[in-house]
């Protein structure tokens, strides 16, 4: 097995992401509970015992950022998993079979696509209540349409290629053709979609929490930290600065990983060898 070759952008991206994972995991060593209030530390600035300062309840912002980042990432990862799974299956079926299957599924997707994904998530949350489970599901469902669209066009292209026609002639089961033969050949689009969806999820979760329907207090997510801090931006800018900085770093890392010279080359090289 040959090593996957990575360009510099991706290397930096991976370093940043490892750094962020370490940051979240180090939260377990942080002695301050994320919901412990302290009257004397209200809006206290950064200090040695509280590196990121304290919020309006005197809670440690570092710990809250670590917890919040963990929750935001967890929500996003699971949402992307849900969205990717259904999006890929639907897209694959539409693109590969075409005809009536494509017509029906595509129309449904088009209808969903017409509704902004944040609104879709809002409707879902208002139907099933708020909480991070609901938010995860809602965001996952919101990802499906765009994912299905991308996958559909990719599978449609691949369907016409020689290797698929050969596989068909060899009477290889359709499921195998779809997910073992075709899928690896659309990895480039697939991975880019995953990374973009992940970015969007973090931001959408922040938006939902900002609207007060995401994770419930006193639990924090990056979104709630930003919205709480926004009210104190003049008096205590550190309240919004540090959570925002970590969010920017994470998104930057993911962006680097998904951009630049694509995985395609690395993979196709592997296939050639």
């Amino acid at each position: 097995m040959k090593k996957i070759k990575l360009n510099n952008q991706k290397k930096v991206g991976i370093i940043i992401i490892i750094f962020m994972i370490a940051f979240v995991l180090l939260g377990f060593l942080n002695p301050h509970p994320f919901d412990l209030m302290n009257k004397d530390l209200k809006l206290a600035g950064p200090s040695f015992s509280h590196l990121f300062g304290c919020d309006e309840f005197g809670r440690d912002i570092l710990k809250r950022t670590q917890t919040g980042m963990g929750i935001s990432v967890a929500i996003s990862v699971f949402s992307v998993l849900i969205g990717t799974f259904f999006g890929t299956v639907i897209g694959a079926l539409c693109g590969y079979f075409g005809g009536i299957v494509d017509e029906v599924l595509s129309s449904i997707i088009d209808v969903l696509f017409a509704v902004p994904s944040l609104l879709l998530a809002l409707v879902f949350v208002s139907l099933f209540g708020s909480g991070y489970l609901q938010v995860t599901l809602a965001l996952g469902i919101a990802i499906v349409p765009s994912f299905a669209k991308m996958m559909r066009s990719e599978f449609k292209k691949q369907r016409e290629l020689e290797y698929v026609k050969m596989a068909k002639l060899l009477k290889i089961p359709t499921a195998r053709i779809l997910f073992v033969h075709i899928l690896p050949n659309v990895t480039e689009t697939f991975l880019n979609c995953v990374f973009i969806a992940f970015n969007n999820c973090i931001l959408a979760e922040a938006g939902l929490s900002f609207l007060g329907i995401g994770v419930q207090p006193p639990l924090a997510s990056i979104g709630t930290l930003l919205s709480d801090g926004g009210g104190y931006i003049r008096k205590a800018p550190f309240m919004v600065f540090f959570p925002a900085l970590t969010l920017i770093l994470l998104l930057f890392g993911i962006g680097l990983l998904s951009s630049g010279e694509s995985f395609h080359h690395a993979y196709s090289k592997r296939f050639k060898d």
Partner: protein
Amino acid sequence: MKKIKTLVLFCLLTLTTVLCACTDDKAKASESITIGIAQDIDDSLDPHKMVAAGTKEIFFNVFEGLVKPDSDGNIVPAVAESVEVSEDKLSYTFKLRKGIKFHDGKAVTIEDLEYSINKFAGRDGSGNAAVSSAFSNISEVNILSDDSIEIKLASPDPAFLSYLASVEAAIIPKGNATPDTVAIGTGPYKYVSRSPLQNVVFERFDSYWGEGGNVKNVTFKICTNADTIAMELEGGTIDMCIHLTKGQKMQLDPQKFNVYEGTMNLVQALYLNHEFEPFNDVNVRKAMNYAVDVNEIMDYVSDGSGSKVGTSIYPNFGKYFDKDLTEVYNPNLDTAKELMAKSAYPNGFDMTITVPSNYDQHVDTALVLKSQLSQIGINAEIKEVDWETWLNDVYFGRKYDATVIGVDAANLSANALLSRFTSDASDNFTNYSNAAYDEAFKNAVSSADDETATKYYKECAEILNSDAANVYIQDLPDFVALNKKYEGYTFYPLYVLDLTKIKAVQ
């Protein structure tokens, strides 16, 4: 080179304009003021149909009833010059003020009074219900002469005048065919225009009967984004803002702004649903009251401002308010734990606090409550919901365990705050049911004189406290920022903004 010249010229021009503007700042201040309000005024302009508290709050300056409240909570004559109450408290005779005019310049006639009273009492044959249930008590409206009118009640009501002293009992002209869109009243300011989501404009009414306003033009700017309000104040696009939060207040420059501190005139409490299992146990409710440290809540939520309530009456209610009740449940964890041990839930229980997410103060309060209640083994989950959901599920649906909210009063009668806790009240969202309370309340409403009524209302308030009906917290502080170019903001014991008190600093 030419470009630079133009640029320099342009900058100079702008500078001159700005400098010119500075010189007549003071003159401008007496001419106009811009006030930021949080919500659009999309209500009906008919005072008898206004629903939102925020609408009534500013239209207090446009509409007046026969009587109106003053800033001390007294009821003073307005459209009526004087009032006489009969011995049996069943007949009120109002004398029309001489020379009083509507905003369109027409004199107020006795027919306008009759029309308005019949309209807001639901007696004009239009099928509309009375704006307040207290007005269905009106049995007759008789014109006695050109300048006096009599209102007869079916049964005596000591609080009747305080009901009349609100925007919803305003006097409006009979000749106005479209009161929904054309606002004509008798107040110190007249309504000029409204641009949806932009502003509402008032202008001083120069033929006002009393001491009118000082500032000529008043513009209410709609600032729906809470995060930008402090910036707008600092930037000077608004001169004044009512109902600031603690966070917004903190951001203001004390050199440029006077921040007035009053109270919001509401009772903030952890309201308990008495249908929810643990809360029908008085020991549990008392334990919760002992476990909750109101001072600590005030420290976190509003930097120590606010006033304790202890029962469903807030301090501005003067004679009904009993300060001793705020000291009954001084925080004491030992007592709280003893009471929990005596209850059916010695090991505590789980509960959910439903709280509307648009009210930061209530969400913050819920957070502190959660940590305080955990000390006696009560595990409170916080569930944030949007305002519509809160209204439907909690207020109307009564499907909740506990909620943090502020309950306000429509007028200055204790009835407005206490009636909701009678067993069969339609707005009894806490499902509170106590025979002793119902009895005391019935006595209060049916008492002929104010003194007896007050005694019984106080008894009601005491029952709510001793029975630990809810975990009473505070009357929230209300902050108003006013640019130092102006002065004179005055708080009322009701939810109103009196523009006449505001004037430019000389």
